[in-house]
Every structure is written in structure tokens, then in C-alpha cells.
């Protein structure tokens, strides 16, 4: 027993003095639990996406359309964009063409078009259009669901108006007014209330139909079956036309959506391995031997960076080719821009590997730190789930990661089919990240006297 306790004490002492083991055991899981908690809305009032930019084009002069816009505005999931100041000429309301352009330009991914004839002259019901760039399937499904929920909550009033319009056309103005007056009198006499107010509400199309729609969200209630039927009836009256503006011709949408995120995550892991090897080389005295040859520290560091880039390119190439062969991801149709984005992403990842080597004190710590940072970057950068499912501060953090910009680049090429010119801004950002991170890394490595 004493032997057992001695050995146990040895293991505990070894473990508690190993910072890498401690980080991987406690810090990584807790940090990931926090991120998952944020994604799934644990301890948050509003679950689901937050702050998704949604263009709303209101071409209708009908006051009820304004109410639909107001209803969308109350959704925390959306940050509405209703106008724009193009070329500094003052703000003007968005048109459908503007919305399409904004989606094409990646400024936003969803738009709701309320057409001028939202309530058709010759028919009963509503007509709406949703434009989307569903580059992220989960986000897309959630947003479409939220839009439909909001629309159906506001729809009854719009339907009432539709009914009123049709009745006025059919009866003529005089008979229509008499009909409304008689109806208001009957309601007031039967249920009580102010006759004038009831008549005003009837004239505005408010027949209390919303009571049919809103409870459908509570499917656990005893009468949910009836209410769902009512909502179903409403949905038949509302024609929502959805149009995928970007990526509709993508050959293998599911694989195309995920391949970029997975590729960049695995690349970061591979590069991390090479930053741990940096220490092995130092510990083996190889730096001393290399630097006693006529070469500079800068040449040594840049050669490692170039190796990282090359490793990255080979790995990305093999992953994309595998994605193409196994899942039909179209890479050959976008070869030029894809290679450029791959180079930029590989450079950014290689610089990350150098930073890990500069910050970590040894090989073990480098592995632990890299695992931690790669997982954090993958989680917050959108490799695992959409950024919009996280609180806004985490969305902001995510935008400072290599993962986010690499995924953006890959989707821009493979999903949106962008040209080389169109992906240049993302390539520029990735290049800027590489330069900044390499500058910091070289400064830190020289300060650390790793070569002495």
C-alpha cells in the first residue's frame, strides 16, 4: 500500500508541475464549455442567432408593411438594414437590387423584400420574398425559421387588410362602409365595447386573427393541434418566395460549406506540430550548428516560415482534392482564386506556428498552447458553428482569428464563385495578419535569445 501511495504521489506531483497537462485538462475544456454554452444559449435570455444583418426592402406603402418591419426590428436575432448612404449622397431606402448587391458583396446574407403588392389587388393573401446567401446551413435554417415566425405573427393583420380590400372592391365603398358599421354594432351589442373603436379596428383589418397564429409557438398546449392547423391555414395564404442569391449553382453545397473550416483547423494543428519541432531542433543543438554557418537568424526564421507555408499548401491541396474526389466539391472551376486564398491562409497559419514557438517556453508547452488556441480559434472563428449563434462580443473576437478569414476566403471562392479580384480584400487581410504575427514572432524570438 505504501508503495502504491508513493507511486500515486509521484504521478500527482508530475501532473501538477506539468503546465501543458494542466492546461489541457482544465483550461481547454472549461473554455470550450463556455463557448458551447454561449452558442447554445445557456443562461441567456434569447437563444439562437444574434445581430444578423438583415436587409429589409419595403416597396409597399401599406401601413401594415411598416408593422412587419417594426416586428422584425424587435427580433434580437436581426440588425436591420433598411437604407444606405451610397457614395455619400445621403441615405436612401434600399431597393431589391441594392439588397442583391449587398448579398453578392458579402455585406449581408439575408434580405426580406416586401413588394409593392404585398397585398394583391386581385386575390386574397400576402406575397413576400426572402433573398439569401445560405453559405452556412445551420444559420440559414435558423434565420429562415425566425423570419417565417415573425412574418406569421404579423400576418393576420395584413390578411385582415387583404380581406377588407377585396370586400371594398366587391361591395363598393358605400355598401362596404355600411357593412363595417353594421358589423361593429353587432360586435358591440353582443360582446360589449366601444362601437367606434371596433369599427376602426375592423376597417384597419384587425379581426383578431393574430390569436390564431401566435399560440402555435407553444406546441405543448392542449389545443395545439387546432392552433397548428390554423397556422397551417395561414401559411397557405402567405406566399413566401425564397431565392438563394449566392451559391445556388454550387455542386456539392453541404461539403462546400464545411470543407474550408475543417481544412484550416487541421492545417493549424499540423503547423502547431512543426512549432513544437522548432524546440526539438533548438534542444538538439542544431540552431547552434546552423547559426555557426554563414547564415543569419532572419534566414533561419524565414526558412521555417516558408516551410510552414509549403506544408500548409500541400495539406490544403490534399484536403481539397480529397473533398473534390470524395464529395464532389468543385475546386477545378475556381483554381486560380483558390490557390491564392490557400497561399494566404497557409502563410497566416505558418505565422501562427512561429508565434506559438515564440511564446511557449518549450516543446511540450508549445503543443499544449497550440491545441488550446487552435480549438478556441476554430470555435470562435466559425469552423464548428456559425458565428452569429454567439454573443456579439464573441462574434467580434472571432473576426480577429485566422480561422474566420480563411473560411471567408474559401467560401468566397468555392461558394460564391468569386474572382481573384473579388477575393483580394480577404487575401489582403490574411496577408496583413501574417505580416503582423511574423513581426511580433521574430521580435519575441530575438528577445527570448532562443538562438544563444
Amino acid at each position, binding site marked *: 500500500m505504501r508503495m502504491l501511495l508513493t507511486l500515486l504521489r509521484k504521478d500527482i506531483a508530475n501532473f501538477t508541475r506539468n503546465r501543458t497537462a494542466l492546461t489541457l485538462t482544465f483550461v481547454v475544456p472549461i473554455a470550450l464549455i463556455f463557448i458551447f454554452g454561449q452558442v447554445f444559449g445557456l443562461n441567456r435570455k434569447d437563444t439562437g442567432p444574434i445581430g444578423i444583418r438583415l436587409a429589409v426592402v419595403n416597396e409597399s406603402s401599406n401601413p401594415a408593411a411598416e408593422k412587419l418591419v417594426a416586428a422584425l426590428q424587435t427580433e434580437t436575432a436581426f440588425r436591420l438594414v433598411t437604407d444606405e448612404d451610397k457614395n455619400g449622397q445621403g441615405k436612401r431606402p434600399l431597393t431589391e437590387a441594392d439588397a442583391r448587391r449587398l448579398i453578392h458583396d458579402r455585406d449581408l446574407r439575408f434580405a426580406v423584400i416586401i413588394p409593392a403588392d404585398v397585398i394583391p389587388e386581385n386575390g386574397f393573401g400576402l406575397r413576400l420574398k426572402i433573398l439569401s446567401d445560405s453559405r452556412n446551413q445551420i444559420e440559414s435554417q435558423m434565420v429562415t425559421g425566425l423570419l417565417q415566425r415573425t412574418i406569421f405573427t404579423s400576418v393576420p393583420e395584413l390578411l385582415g387588410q387583404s380581406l377588407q380590400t377585396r370586400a371594398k372592391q366587391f361591395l363598393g365603398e358605400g355598401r362596404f362602409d355600411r357593412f363595417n358599421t353594421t358589423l361593429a354594432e353587432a360586435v358591440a351589442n353582443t360582446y360589449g365595447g366601444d362601437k367606434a373603436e371596433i369599427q376602426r379596428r375592423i376597417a384597419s383589418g384587425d379581426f383578431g386573427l393574430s390569436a390564431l397564429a401566435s399560440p402555435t409557438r407553444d406546441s405543448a398546449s392542449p389545443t395545439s393541434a387546432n392552433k397548428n392547423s390554423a397556422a397551417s391555414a395561414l401559411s397557405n395564404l402567405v406566399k413566401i418566395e425564397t431565392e438563394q442569391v449566392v451559391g445556388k449553382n454550387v455542386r456539392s453545397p453541404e461539403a462546400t460549406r464545411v470543407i474550408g473550416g475543417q481544412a484550416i483547423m487541421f492545417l493549424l494543428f499540423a503547423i502547431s506540430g512543426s512549432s513544437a519541432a522548432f524546440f526539438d531542433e533548438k534542444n538538439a543543438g542544431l540552431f*547552434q550548428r546552423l*547559426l*555557426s554557418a554563414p547564415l543569419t537568424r532572419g534566414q533561419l526564421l524565414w526558412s521555417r516560415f516558408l516551410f510552414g507555408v509549403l506544408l500548409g499548401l500541400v495539406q490544403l491541396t490534399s484536403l481539397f482534392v480529397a473533398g473534390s474526389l470524395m464529395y464532389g466539391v468543385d475546386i477545378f472551376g475556381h483554381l486560380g482564386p483558390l490557390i491564392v486564398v490557400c497561399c494566404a491562409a497557409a502563410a497566416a497559419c505558418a505565422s501562427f506556428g512561429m508565434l506559438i514557438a515564440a511564446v511557449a517556453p518549450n516543446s511540450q508547452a508549445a503543443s499544449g498552447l497550440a491545441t488550446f488556441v487552435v480549438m478556441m480559434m476554430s470555435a470562435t472563428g466559425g469552423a464548428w458553428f456559425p458565428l452569429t449563434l454567439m454573443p456579439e462580443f464573441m462574434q467580434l473576437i472571432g473576426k480577429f482569428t485566422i480561422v474566420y478569414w480563411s473560411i471567408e476566403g474559401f467560401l468566397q471562392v468555392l461558394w460564391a464563385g468569386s474572382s481573384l479580384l473579388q477575393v483580394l480584400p480577404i487575401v489582403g487581410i490574411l496577408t496583413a495578419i501574417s505580416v503582423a504575427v511574423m513581426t511580433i514572432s521574430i521580435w519575441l524570438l530575438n528577445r527570448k535569445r532562443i538562438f544563444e
Partner: protein
Amino acid sequence: MLQFTSVTKRYGALTALDDVSLTVARGEFFGLLGPNGAGKSTLMSLVAGLRAPDSGRVTLDGVALSPANVAARTSLGVVPQQIALYEELSAEQNLRIFGELYGLRGSLLRDRIEEALVAVQLADRRRHQVKTFSGGMMRRLNLVTALLHRPKLLLCDEPTVGIDPQSRNAIFDFLEQLNREGLTIIYSTHYMEEATRLCSRIGVIDHGKILALGSLDELLTHLPFDEEIHFPATPATATLASELTRCGELTLADERHRFRPSADFKLSEFYRLTEAQALPARLFTTERPTLEAVFLHLTGRKLRE
């Protein structure tokens, strides 16, 4: 050829080299002897241009050696203390990489690699991964890697650590041959046997200071005695031992007495004492003192303490 002029190097509060001045002439086999942490590796790294001195100057043929002077390193060959080789690669690949770093190309590089492999008896293992080599083979390759570009000065920082005596002797033979061919060598070690065998001149270093400098004979003049007298510690020699404590320094190790006579001690006195005790001459041997004794005398402690 190599000159240290008042060189000081500090790491924070620790002074690794303290006002060191030293000259190594062309063709010399210069030994740097000192315990671990004495400043040997720091001195070597200053020559190799891996570090810059805080004050003073290190020059090779009048050219300052520093991390900034990359070109000067073509004159140097460095054999680090560790086996600094890429173990996944073959012997030939390692030699090719380091040869190319020194600017060797084409047939010249091929010839030098061939010569190097033959010289250290690794020609038949040229395509084998270094990780499959024995410690001695790795050490030999480690050494020859520093010679491909024909340096003027070879720096060997404890190049025989952890190898068997046979491989050590092979390395010694090789280094001696190189030195005979004119190569200047600086050899750092904490093994006095190595310094004694190889070096024409030795610098004894401790706590960052050169305590003594010269050939083995010159270093031994630092000692207050020339020879040591050894005899077994037995009851028969007990009285003699007791008497000798008045005449010099007597130490006991491994059941043998070691007597270092004081400067004024006369041999006739020793004969008188042995005759008085009727001790036969065969019990006594005389030995020349070693570098260990020099180090002990200079620092008050043993080399490996």
C-alpha cells in the same frame, strides 16, 4: 590567429566570462579545461559568433567575430557538445545540407562528402538514417560535418561526451591527424586526460576567468612540487606516513598514500625515514602530478566537483 582582448560576457547577474584575454596561434591544438559552468561554452559561442561580448573584442586574423559578421563564419568549423544532426536523415543528407550552408556545390561538395565519410569510416552507412547509428558513429559524423568546408579554425565543444573509449580514441586520432595537417583546433573539455593527450597548450578556466595558460609542463610549474610519491597504506607504513605529514601534503585514497613533498623537502630525508622503518623500495612509486592537481591547486577544488 584568434585573439580575445579583455572580453567580458554577462547573463544578468552572472558573469560568464570576466575580462578574458587570450591568444591562440595558427596550428595550435588549444585546450580549454574547466568544470561545467566555468565559461567554456560561452567562450566557444563568442568565437562561433553566436553571441556578442558585452565588452572587449574577439578577432580571427584581425577580423572581429560577432553575430553580425556572418561572412567570418566561413573560416570556422563548429562541433557542438550535442549531436547536432538531423536523425531522420541519412549521413549523406546531413553532410549535403551543412556543406551547402557553407556554399559548397556540385562535384566539390560530392568529393568532400565522400572524403568525410571515408575519413570517419561511415562510407558504407552513408544512406542509413542517423538515428540508426551508434553513439560513436553519430559523434564521428557530428565532427566531420564541421570540416566539409575546410575551416581555418575548428571549435570542438566537449565532442566526446557519452561515447565508448574506442570511439573516443578514433576521434582523438582523427583530430590529431587534422592538427598535424595544420588545422588550428580549440578543444573544450572537463576531462583532463583529453586535454593532456591532445593539447599543445591549455587554458584552465573557472568562474569565467582564465586561471592559467600554457603547455602541460608550464602548467605543472604552478605546483609547489614536481613529483608525487605513492605507497600502500599498511600498518608497516603507518609510522612513515605519520612522519611525512611534517614534510609535505599527505592524502589517502583507495588504500594508498599520496605524498606531495614541500619545496624544501630533501630526498635524503625520505631515504632516512624508509630505512629506519626497514621498508623495501618496491613499495614506492613516483608519479608526475596531473592537470587535476594543477586545477586543485589553482581553485581549491577538484575538476569534477
